[in-house]
């Protein structure tokens, strides 16, 4: 049994950590966030140049053949820097969907360009009524000539405002919430009938809703078999969940570090407030939540690329449930221990807190994953 990163994984994590330290100090992040793009094009380029966008892809497609743990190493450091670039959306989820379901042409066309950081992808699986249930899809794709016509609305595509390619789920058969009958399409964001409503997000990123009004696509826009996309969506969002867990751990570690520093330096009643037992114990609870989260992030990373199974589903649901709860506890308590200063825009802590809370709103909150887990409970 060995819970340490191997030498290569450690090097990978150090590389990302160095890059983040250099490019993502808090003031710079505020500027990236306020820019029209909402993140740093330069940082994205560097991710590509350093080979970080290639981490999870097989070697024959220009990748490193990296494992779930490799992705975890990258995401934890991106989380520590509160990085805004669409790495998870493009590399983990978008790239993952194309890898799993795409045909050879599609893989060749897109994966090599994802791996170099040349293109960015946004993925639209949620809808206004879906509340995290990704089978709850009302967007429809009808056969039209050799291609399809899409109508509907996809919700909260992080990075969708600047994506080169948008992947959306749409129903080609079946009723709302059927697991069968879902298909995956690649959409050109500038195609006729595609409208984007762009907005900033609470945690400083940007995203959009995508409205599809009679959008014509060719047969080559279909990724995978018609009506059979459910399995790939389920599997790849599992990988996204593991990546988010890793990101959350990076953010939690930083929030805890800031809070601990504050307890040691902030004086009230003549002593550092860290001398007060009630705050000491709170800090212990936060650290203990972090340990739980760290453990589940490791576990999630270790099964993220395993073959699909109930056991994998259980672990990923459990991990996201733990991380959702730990993230909220750490977000709320690190603000509380800081007092007013923890609520200010110009201090980094509040931004960690906001990111942690918003991670709970991506691919299911702790309630959703508790239900998922409960539905897979083993009899004994």
């Amino acid at each position, binding site marked *: 049994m060995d819970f340490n990163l191997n030498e290569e994984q450690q090097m990978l994590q150090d590389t990302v950590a160095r890059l983040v330290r250099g490019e993502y100090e808090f003031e710079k992040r505020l500027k990236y966030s306020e820019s029209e793009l909402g993140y740093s094009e330069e940082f994205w380029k560097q991710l590509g140049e350093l080979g970080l966008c290639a981490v999870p892809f097989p070697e024959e497609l220009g990748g490193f053949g990296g494992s779930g743990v490799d992705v975890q190493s990258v995401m934890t450091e991106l989380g520590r820097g509160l990085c805004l670039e669409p790495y998870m959306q493009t590399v983990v989820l978008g790239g993952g969907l194309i890898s799993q379901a795409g045909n050879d042409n599609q893989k060749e066309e897109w994966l090599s360009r994802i791996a170099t950081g040349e293109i960015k992808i946004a993925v639209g699986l949620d809808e*206004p009524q879906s*509340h995290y249930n990704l089978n709850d899809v009302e967007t429809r794709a009808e056969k039209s000539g050799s291609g399809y016509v899409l109508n509907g609305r996809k919700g*909260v595509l992080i990075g969708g405002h600047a994506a080169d390619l948008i992947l959306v789920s749409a129903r080609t058969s079946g009723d709302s919430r059927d697991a069968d009958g879902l298909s995956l399409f690649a959409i050109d964001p500038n195609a006729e009938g595609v409208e984007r409503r762009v907005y900033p997000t*609470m945690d400083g990123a940007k995203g959009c809703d995508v409205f599809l009004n009679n959008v014509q696509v060719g047969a080559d826009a279909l990724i995978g078999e018609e009506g059979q996309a459910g399995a790939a969506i389920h599997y790849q969002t599992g990988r996204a969940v593991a990546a988010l867990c890793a990101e959350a751990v990076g953010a939690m570690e930083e929030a805890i570090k800031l809070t601990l520093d504050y307890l040691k330096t902030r*004086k009230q009643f003549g002593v550092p407030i860290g001398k007060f037992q009630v705050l000491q114990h709170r800090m212990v609870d936060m650290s203990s939540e972090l340990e739980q989260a760290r453990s589940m992030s490791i576990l999630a990373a270790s099964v993220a690329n395993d073959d699909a199974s109930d056991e994998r589903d259980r672990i990923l649901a459990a991990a996201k449930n733990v991380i959702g709860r730990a993230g909220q506890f750490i977000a709320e308590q690190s*603000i509380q221990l800081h007092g*007013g200063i923890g609520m200010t825009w*110009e201090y980094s802590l509040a931004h960690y807190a906001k990111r942690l*809370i918003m991670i709970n*709103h991506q691919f299911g909150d702790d309630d959703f994953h508790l239900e998922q887990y409960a539905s897979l409970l083993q009899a004994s």
Partner: protein
Amino acid sequence: MNMNYTADELAFRDEVRTFLEEKLPADIAAKVKEGRRMSRADHERWQQILVKQGWYATHWPEEYGGVKWTAVQKHIWDEESCRYGAPRSIPFGVNMVAPVIIKFGSEEQKQHYLPRILSGEDWWCQGYSEPGSGSDLASLKTRAVREGDHYIVNGQKTWTTLGQHANMIFCLVRTNTEVKAQEGISFLLIDMKTPGVTVRPIITLDGEHEVNEVFFDDVKVPVENLVGDEDKGWTYAKYLLTYERTGLAGIGASKAALSHLKAIAGRQKKNGRPLIEDPTFAQRVAQVEIDLMAASISNLRIIASVEGGGVPGAESSMLKVRGTELRQAITDLSRRALGPYAQPFVEEELALEFEGDHLSDPDGAALSPQYFNMRKLSIFGGSNEIQKNIVTKMILGL
């Protein structure tokens, strides 16, 4: 044991309801209920309606334009006005500095300031906290040095709520450094237009400008602006804090927020049904409603004891902790109700005048910002940790 209102109290409640139905402007009520942005003018408009009704200054003696309500009447007002979506009065003038002036101020101060609070001519803010003095308020450092018929004030106050609108600030300042911290503090009224006063906004994590820093750089304050005696300000400050703490539990506001949450959860969908019918979510809402039921009876018990001549002491600290935790739990659920749509920050929809299509729920845009904003409840007015210290000492005797 009798938990019912008397006939007089029921008649008063009807009077309050009629007043709110007839006089509360619909646009203001909508803003309050839906968590949209209130303007300074909104607050002023509602204040004048209350003043005209004679219901604005509920802590003041009648001779100064106050109204003599019992504790139960105040409670009825709190419940009903929250239910109808009336804004809470900005407390700094009417409910904070005024009681101090009435109890400790000079006759000139009463004659000068009290009418101006009623008329809205003065907008007050609070100069208590400093960057180095939060929970440990008595360690404050802002200095006032007497020179002839003036004090010269230097220092900095922070977390000054709505200071950007204020023309007057009441300040705790240090007038004596030779004695124990609590014994060298004075209570000073300062005109914000005096040269040397600078207000700098603090933007909070939800992007709002609600609080400020206030800097004092050789600010000349006439000695007649001192309330009571020099170096006795700590006594007045504590007197004021008992007023601040009253109502911080916000039971009425929590009830209104819970009802708003239910409306949203009735509109949001999960698995094709209203979210409020989802077993997981329904249980979470039920749990909060049950706890709120208990807290509201605790609140009534305190009110009844005040009515019977008791003094609300540390019980109000206990209730502040409970009440703020409940309100935070409600804002947590409201944010959760939106699912993935808790992420977008659609600032333009915070304005009542917004006429475009709503991104998700018509009231959705305010929910995540409010969740973050309401973190302040367990921090301000004495953090919940400080409240628990009070309970530890005053009730438990530990």
